């Protein structure tokens, strides 16, 4: 597959190269993290086991095109990880959470689970065999770039699982706009590639969860809101029943973090996420897509901090809680409980940013935070 290369690719590559020099060393047999979290399942609210594997990392991100402008997960990868290492990591994670009840397993490996260069075929299969043996697990979520979503790769895994177990592949579409995905994000694939992958997955009875990025760099907050809404609609229309909205958080060794340090990037506002979620549900109803949607969730990293999605210091905590609550309940009205005086400043900043294309206006938020 030919990968479209974005305009910032050379600089992203440079930044990543520098960041990788100081990459922290992880033991080959140790998983990076694992925990149990409350999760919106297809059948309601339940628990999910999250496992983050120490893997060789995303090949697109580590390649000569530099990877995505906001992604710093390559910092949590290691060279020379074997299939045996990965299996050992996963079994240890299971042991660490032994005795706990969960209905979903989510495996993250800072890249594509289906890419055999990252997770060798044997490791994929052994890990899935382990999962198939865990009682009560109904949902398995892995992540992959669309080019690795092939019928054979999926079939190999689904045949291992129990018939009632559902596999969901998370694909980071980020935006349905090719212009934004290629240039603002440097994602390296087209919307058409995503559509093809979704069709392949659905044919294999595999579900697709679409990750959408809220506020790629070089977009105004207003543009970012509009893009996230439109992208979700497009992804749903393509057949993805789960949508996860990911507000950008500042990760080290990325173009976004370099811009952030220069004062030219601000993570999105909770107000913007609220707008996206509420408008999106309205659009879904208007376009009669309600039956095509299972869940629209958002689990922001670094929520309420300067590096993650945030409003002002007065309402960050409440906002984080409400977003979590919304994701579990799937009731957009929950977000109406958010009230704060920063709302009118947010509106004003959006207006000014749109009219000036000045990405440094968060400079003026300090004054309100000092009052």
């Amino acid at each position, binding site marked *: 597959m030919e990968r479209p290369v974005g305009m910032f690719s050379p*600089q992203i590559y440079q930044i990543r190269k520098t960041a990788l020099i100081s990459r922290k060393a992880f033991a080959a047999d140790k998983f990076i993290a694992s925990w149990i979290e409350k999760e919106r399942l297809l059948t309601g609210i339940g628990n999910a086991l999250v496992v983050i594997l120490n893997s060789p990392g995303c090949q697109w991100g580590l390649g000569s095109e530099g990877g995505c402008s906001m992604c710093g997960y390559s910092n949590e990868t290691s060279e020379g990880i074997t299939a045996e290492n990965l299996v050992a990591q996963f079994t240890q994670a299971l042991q660490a959470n032994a005795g706990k009840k969960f209905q979903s397993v989510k495996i993250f490996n800072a890249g594509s689970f289906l890419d055999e260069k990252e997770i060798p075929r044997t490791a994929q299969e052994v890990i899935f065999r382990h999962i198939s043996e865990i009682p009560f697990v109904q949902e398995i979520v892995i992540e992959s770039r669309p080019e690795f979503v092939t019928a054979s790769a999926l079939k190999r895994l689904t045949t291992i699982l129990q018939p009632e177990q559902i596999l969901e592949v998370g694909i980071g579409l980020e935006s349905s706009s090719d212009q934004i995905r290629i240039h603002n994000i440097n994602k390296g694939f087209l919307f058409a590639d995503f559509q093809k992958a979704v069709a392949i997955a659905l044919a294999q009875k595999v579900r697709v969860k679409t990750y959408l990025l809220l506020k790629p760099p070089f*977009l105004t907050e207003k543009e970012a809101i509009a893009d996230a809404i439109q992208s979700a609609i497009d992804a749903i229309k393509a057949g993805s029943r789960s949508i996860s909205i990911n507000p950008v958080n500042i990760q080290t060794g990325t173009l976004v973090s370099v811009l952030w340090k220069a004062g*030219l990037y601000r993570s999105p506002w909770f107000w913007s996420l609220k707008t996206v979620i509420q408008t999106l549900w309205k659009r879904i109803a208007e376009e009669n897509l309600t039956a095509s949607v299972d869940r629209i969730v958002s689990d922001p990293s670094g929520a309420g901090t300067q590096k993650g999605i945030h409003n002002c210091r007065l309402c960050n905590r409440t906002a984080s809680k409400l977003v979590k609550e919304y994701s579990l309940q799937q009731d957009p009205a929950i977000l109406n409980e958010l009230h704060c005086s920063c709302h009118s400043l947010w509106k004003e900043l959006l*207006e*000014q940013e749109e009219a000036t*294309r000045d990405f*440094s206006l968060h400079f*003026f938020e300090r*004054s309100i935070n000092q009052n």
Partner: protein
Amino acid sequence: MLFDLLDISANGKYAKVVINDTSLVFPTLLTLTSTKENDINWLLGDSGKTLSINLPPSSLTQEVSNKKTTIQFVANILMHEPLQVSFVLNNLQKTTALIADRLKIVPPENALVMLQPNINPEILDAVTKTITKYKIRHVGITNFTPLLNTPRKALEFILRLRQLLPLDTLLYLFSPVPHTVVPILSYCGVDAFNSGYVWLATKSGLYLTAAGALPLTQLSEKICSCKICADLPISDLQKALLENNAAGLDEHNMLIYQAKVREVRYALKQKDLRSYVEQNLFDTFTATALRLLDSSWTDMLISRTATWLSTPIYHLTPLSYYRPAVQAFQRRVRERFDILPYKKIVVIFPCSARKPYSFSKSHRKFLEVINSLPKDKQAYIQQLILTSPLGVIPRELELVYPAAHYDIPVTGLWSEEEKAIAVQQLTSVLLKARKQKPIVIAHVSDEYLTLCQEAEQKLKTTFVYTAAGSKPTAFQALANLKKTLLAKIADSPPHQYNKDLEFVRALSDYQFGLGIGEKLFPEPVTLKQKPNQNIFLFKGKNRIGVIHHRTGQLMLTVPMGMALAKQKKYYLKLHGEELKGSTIFAVGVFEADPEIRPSDGVVILNEKDELLGVGVASLSGSDMVSMSSGRAAKVKTKVKSLTKAHSG
């Protein structure tokens, strides 16, 4: 587009601009229209008439709205730090092609490009070349706010733009900035400010005052009595704010912001924005920027600062010591003043509060002593006045701006900085006479005396002190001065003294360069002055010139102009055979002496170096050449017949 530069003060411009029959004055405001959602644009202008500007395109897609506005964005050049230089330059080529394409529809005088801060010389060079090549007159700046924390970078960016772009290119700062930095940024060369700060402050609950912003919730009484504040009690404003409703606060804040811009315009009209900037030292950005401007951008500032003004200068802060007018004066004294070879005695006097010094009580006493000496011996004496922050003022230049115009808090306390400036200036002036080794008589006491002693040490000479231990005006001190002077000149032969000639020659040298006085005035002249009137120059019974008493400037006449033209000094060259009208437009000037500063007297020449007339510069010499519109100089006198005026 008609661009009329009315007044200039450093990089600050007071200008009238006419675009599509609408006339605006700059500096001015940019305000977002708050009509319907998704139908907003900018309005340029803050007093009645406005021009519309569309919203800027994305720097990645460059897509512009097809909304018809008077001024139209043609591009948003992706150039900010920390993007790779090679990438920016590469991308600029594509954007330039796009600009060229869009200019087929949008006339250059209506075209606006958006820039982002970057101080890389290669990038600035390439970007400004594109702007000048396509004759774009409107330049926007965005992403500026982080630079409020790095004044050095902010200055570097704006002043480089001001250096690389013609003066008649208008700079629009789209990034909102607090009103307190409007004066300094205008002084740096920004022509229009986004009033968006008003709305951001309002929504943040800030109540603007001339000096800054106060949290409204903490106010217990009204500070302002503008029409909004007069009608609404403070509690109503606070209540409205809590209910998320600006109700009036925005209007009050807008009045404060507007006032700042209008005060800047007033200060520019007075040709002295500098004083207003010094009165607006409300934040560290302004203070830091002013310091850096004076130290790193001196030449640029001086070249665009008027040489001759009649307004007072108040030295209120140590920053005042380095005003361009002060530095320029000190420089001219060092470079263009000479102690004549026959001066055997230099007398140093302390300054006086009253200006010019000769009008003060103390100096009248000093002058009485000098005048009481035999007439044929007075020529041996050079008087110097020691002061802060100008340093040393030769008696001949005491009328000159800013020597006769400054005021400084008189406490008798000199800071180390002031002392250093004065000593440095005194030593360099005295060094001019090192060949003739004059006797230096310091008729000073207290701090002045310490200064003289420091200069003495530096020069490795000995001064004679005639007022040590008493007031220089004390009877005993004056008697001592007279006795010392008489003793020192007793053995010298009589020397003819034409005080008035020395005066005009020294003044001419100061104005046009060392040695020019002799060329302009080869023969003796006499001066006549009545109190508070201009000084007239006479040659015999003929009036041959005038010196403005309020600025101290010698006005050029055609005969003086002919002599000056021969020296190739303070000239500007025009295409054409004769002068039409009383204004010289920059578009016609193809060469000019780079020494020219606004308000300097100039000679106007044609291509064949023939004198067409004399006038007064409105711009610096280099700006006259680079600008393509606006007034370069005012004509004072035209030459009647060219043949007579050939200067060779």
